[in-house]
């Protein structure tokens, strides 16, 4: 246990909520709120899973994911993407970029926690 999760999100209240939910499950949660430097953060931190927001300052979630998938190290890294833009086109874009799971905000706490748990187990 003691899995390492990186949360890339720029809304403080949402960071707070997700951090609360995942920490309670026993995972170590790090946060990062800048899109432009998110890929470097993943490289240095090497988390077991990334929770990625779609709209971020600097660089959007799709671009970050594409860049990660181009790196063989993160080819199989579980990525859960969250978005507040309720457009179906975004889901297609994300799936094409190689997302592991795609969820629309507002989410149910249970769903997020279950999704993270499933993804981590799947990756093992």
């Amino acid at each position: 246990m003691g899995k390492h999760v990186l949360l890339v999100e720029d809304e403080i209240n949402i960071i707070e909520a997700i951090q609360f939910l995942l920490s309670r499950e026993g995972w170590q949660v790090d946060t990062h709120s800048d899109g432009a430097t998110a890929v470097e953060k993943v490289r240095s931190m090497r988390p077991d899973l990334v929770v990625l927001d779609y709209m971020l300052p600097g660089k959007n979630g799709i671009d970050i994911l594409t860049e990660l998938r181009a790196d063989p190290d993160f080819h199989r890294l579980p990525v859960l993407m969250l978005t507040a833009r309720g457009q179906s086109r975004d889901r297609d874009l994300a799936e094409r970029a190689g997302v592991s799971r795609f969820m629309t905000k507002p989410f149910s706490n249970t769903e997020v926690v279950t999704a993270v748990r499933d993804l981590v187990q799947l990756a093992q």
Partner: protein
Amino acid sequence: MISVNQLVAVSLVYVAFLFAIAFFAERASVRGRSGWLRSPLVYTLSLSIYCTAWTFYGAVGYAARSGMEFVTIYLGPSLVMIGWWWVLRKLVRIGRAQRATSVADLISARYGKSNLLAIVVTLMAVVGVTPYIALQLQSVTLSVSIFSDPVQSDGLSQSTATFWVAFGLAIFTVLFGTRNLNANERHDGVVIAIAVEAVVKLIALLAVGIFVVWGIAGGIGPMMDRIDSSPIGEWSMDRSRWVALTALSAAAFLALPRMFQVMVVENEDERHLQIASWAFPLYLMLMSLFVVPIAVIGLDILPAGSNPDLFVLTVPLAEGQGGLATLSFLGGFSSATSMVIVATLALSTMVSNHIVMPIWLSAQAEGAQVSGDVRNVVILARRASILMIIFFGYLYYRLSGGGAALAAIGLISFVGVAQFLPAMLGGIFWRGATRWGALAGLVVGFVVWVFCSLLPSFGPDAVLSATVFDNGIAGMGWLRPQALFGVEGIDPTVHAIVWSLTLNMVAFVCVSLVTFPQPLERLQGAQFVNVFDHSTQARGWDAAPATSEDLMVMAQRILGPTDALSLFRAEAQRQGLSGHLPEPTQGFLQTLERELAGSVGSATAHAMISQLVGGASVSVEDLMAVADESAQILEYSNRLEAKSAELSRTARQLREANEKLTALSVQKDAFLGQISHELRTPMTSIRSFSEILRDTDELEQAEKTKYASIIHGETIRLTRLLDDLLDLSVLENGQVSLNLDTGNLNDVIGQAVLSAGGDRSTRLTVRHEQAQIDRPLTTDLDRLRQVFINLITNAQKYCDAPRPELRIDVVDHGDGLHVVFHDNGTPIPSESRTLIFEKFSRINDKDGSGAGLGLAICREIMARLGGDITHEPRADGNAFIVHLPAQAALAAQ
């Protein structure tokens, strides 16, 4: 007795001799020493191809059967030649001026270069001349058969002989006529050869005649007595036949394709006509001089039942004059060959130029390689046409049974080609003649000819059944081929002549009167009818005076009054003249032609200017008529152009509208995405924390309070967002009603500062000097205050200076007051300066509490109030400037 083999040998030597003459003539012509080739004498002799084997043999037969009537065949052409000044001269002049290569070419040129007419004339000519060719085959065959001993008559049947004669003639013609191809369609070698043949046939006939009169009858006196006592002496004149046949032979003389070839196409100098006008009738007179004596003697000394068509041969033979008979044979042979050569040449030119070449060229159109092999195709087409035409002649000979008298067959042909005459003469004397008139006349005349003359010539039950002869087509009595419209009791030949030419002319005139000539037809018509009015010299433009007024009038009709006037005035100015009429210099005429060409096409423009300047066969009225028509066409095409311009404009507008809609739709998608994001983000926090509060029992009180206040804060954020969105939508749709009131600017600023500063948490210091410029305002004070509050709260949120400060100044700019909100934060980058006023744009939004709608709302409000809001970077921060309009402008809102 001379054997057939000897005859063939003599013929071959004779042909070789003709070839040699033709060869040397052509070589001389190539070297440019062709003067003697083109003398009036040669021209006159070449006209003698009118006298074919029909004349040579048939005239005697005709005389033996019908007395003096054979003279009509000579009378018609003689009248035409003697009256040459009237018709022939004009025909030759036009033919040369238009470079006509055939009758078909001439008729088509007259009626606006109609290819349809050319094809019709060509087909009619081929059909019309076919019996004539058959006639030549028949006469040569007959003449050869005289020499073959009927007792030891070998297996060579008459039709086989005819086939070989036809074959020989075809080879002869191909070798003679298509050895090379001249651009002007002239054949020096052929012309000189037929001139020689003309001499041979004249000498042969004279020799036989002299022998008959002095050798047999014993002088002129005894000859006259024998004539008086013979059946021919009792001959009486049939007036209607005389008139009809004379007219017919005159018509055929003008309209026969082979006559056109030698008379017009091969004509070197118009003055030759003048000499031919008496020399050719003289030739015809000599040809006819001994016809009656030979006929009388033939009837006298030969057994009853001998073919009178062959008296010219059989009389010398009966008297044991083998040499004279051979000469006579050569005369007949000459008549037949010269006719076949020239007739098939003329026809093959028509067939290849008007039928084969157009088809070949259109078939080649996609190949695009129209190179030197056109020449080969033309020669091939001509040769094939020659073979085909002679084959048709042979076929006619076989089908008609070869039995009819020579003269009868010749007359059928004459009636056929005479159908061209109305269109030809109408075309050169009557301006009103039109293409459709010509076509109608030709077709009607041709159909009547086929029905009344050609088909009956095969005899009853050959093509037309005997019942048709007796009862008409489908039992309609008025459709009998030899009693059309119930007119009975007329000689069949006269019947065919009268009906075909009358109906032809009626159709020609009537249709011409009801149809309207096209511009080109009108121009060509004028060229033909007035051919003598225009000079034959090469026309230089500056040689003849053109009046500027005429040019001006024409230019106005084509270019329109304004354009024409400005063109002329500019030229006059350039020439240093006052007014608008420049001198018609060469340069100006070229300019004018270019201008006109843009409207009516270069050919027409050139024709019009040269006609007007060169003074001319085409009257100014004609030109104006054409100009008017062109102008109408032009106007019509202008209207079309305008229409298509309008259409393309509409299409462009549609395209633009579509692009705008697409852009709008993209914007709308982006906007909905933004709104969705702005609404869902606070809702996410609310949902997540409310679930935490609901589902987690072991929360501490401090945590519960914290989460509840987050939910509370996000709810307020949502509410504000919704308020802003509604506000913006109302403002953007222009549905907002302004609440006009009069107040004090300083009071409004003060209230705004108070409302914004209500939040004690802010560190921003707001400086506002009350003593500044102040004046009463009449505007929506609440909305203005909303703008001010927005600007102050923005400064509170975004001013990142260690000691954030906002100074509010009022500046008078003459055209209105500026309220400047000057903060000391980091200046907004220049590329974002217009962006910040767009919806959902957030620069450096740290806590993410704003939806990015504030400045957009401010801009909308100021627009509604008749002012504006702008941003200016300052050295020490940012300045947002609210432009208040002058009082008048405000009041006007």
